[in-house]
């Protein structure tokens, strides 16, 4: 019995002696991970802000509305003043008087309902209205068309909202700042879902991309909507 008591005593002594020893350390780590906040289009020098659909699309999210978006400028307008501007402002003053950068970067999205629209042979009046260059040498100004589509959140394959419209602008392509002649903003190689007949609800499990573009509220269409116009760059890899 006494032997056991003594053993317990020694055990206690040893445990106390070794109680301060640390055979392992735990280091906690916090920080941030993402894209470097810089324009991928060398013709665009505006600062890039990280955006997401919930913020851009306003208070009607997952639908979209002008009201409630930080890019609302007044009762009818939002984002940059003109969607075809080759030199849009880097920021706008929103309806609350706050300065809001308008070149945004959105990641975790895929492209579908991709099509060609609004062809032209000359620059928009906002860009001086001159004819496009004759790059193909046929003696006439070349024709450039917008390439448009909708971005959906990766993993969302059965709902039409939330989404945001994008447009490769024909003036930007004519200027050589976007389109097939570029590596950072090609409208030909951008991954997208294959075309499907209307109502185009059969979304694919699209290739994830990240995009940069200027925020614009298009109030000219039958259904007003937010878009990234011009889409200035996209990435699937660096």
């Amino acid at each position, binding site marked *: 019995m*006494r*032997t*056991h*008591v*003594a*053993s*317990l*005593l*020694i*055990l206690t002594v*040893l*445990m106390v*002696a*070794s109680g*301060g*020893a*640390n*055979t*392992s*350390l*735990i*280091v*906690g*780590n*916090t*920080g*941030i*991970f*993402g*894209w*470097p906040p810089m324009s991928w289009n060398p013709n665009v020098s505006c600062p890039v802000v*990280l955006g*997401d659909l919930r913020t851009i699309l306003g208070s009607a999210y997952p639908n979209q509305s002008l009201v409630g978006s930080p890019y609302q400028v007044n009762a009818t307008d939002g984002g940059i003043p003109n969607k075809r501007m080759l030199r849009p402002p880097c920021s706008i003053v929103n309806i609350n008087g706050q300065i809001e950068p308008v070149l945004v970067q*959105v*990641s*975790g999205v895929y492209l579908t309902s991709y099509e060609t629209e609004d062809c032209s042979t000359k620059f928009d009046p906002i860009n001086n209205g001159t004819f496009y260059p004759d790059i193909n040498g046929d003696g006439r100004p070349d024709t450039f068309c917008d390439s448009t589509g909708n971005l959906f*959140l*990766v993993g969302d394959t059965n709902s039409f909202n939330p989404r945001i419209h994008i447009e490769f602008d024909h003036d930007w392509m004519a200027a050589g700042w976007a389109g097939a002649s570029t590596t950072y903003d090609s409208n030909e190689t951008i991954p997208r879902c294959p075309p499907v007949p209307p109502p185009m609800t059969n979304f694919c499990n699209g290739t*994830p*991309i*990240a995009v940069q573009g200027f925020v614009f509220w298009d109030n000219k269409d039958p259904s007003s909507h937010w878009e990234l116009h011009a889409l200035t760059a996209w*990435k*699937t*890899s*660096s």
Partner: protein
Amino acid sequence: MSRLTIKLILGMLVIISLVAIVIGASLLSISNTGTLVNVGNNLFAIVDVAQGASCGTAPGYSDTGLIINSWNVTVGSSQSKYACVKNTGASSDTLTITRTGTIPSGVSFSSAGGIVNGNGGTLLVTFTLTASTTACLSTSCPVALNFGISIS
């Protein structure tokens, strides 16, 4: 009972106790090997030190509250952080460094450690996060980093 008798009895009790302690200690030295090993290694660290820091003279070693909160990793790049580890135990230790918790898809963790001598030996260790070029495409970015590193 005389005082002499009492003293004899107390003396015998002391002797018996000492014998019991010796026996008990010998038993424990066999059955508590793990505990004894613990005494050999005793680790402390200073985290987020500069690359090439002089760990031998650096102040502020601790075994608690070790946090690196300055990670800022961009897609297609890597970032390294450094820590000084001190071993005040009697034995040298080959450090095992492992990540705990989760990090974003496409981001990998690696480390460089080595042997840290006992009796106050120090070692500069490296932790590195590397992000692939496609690491931030499937999810919305930026995302918060929140993970652990175990050093043993």
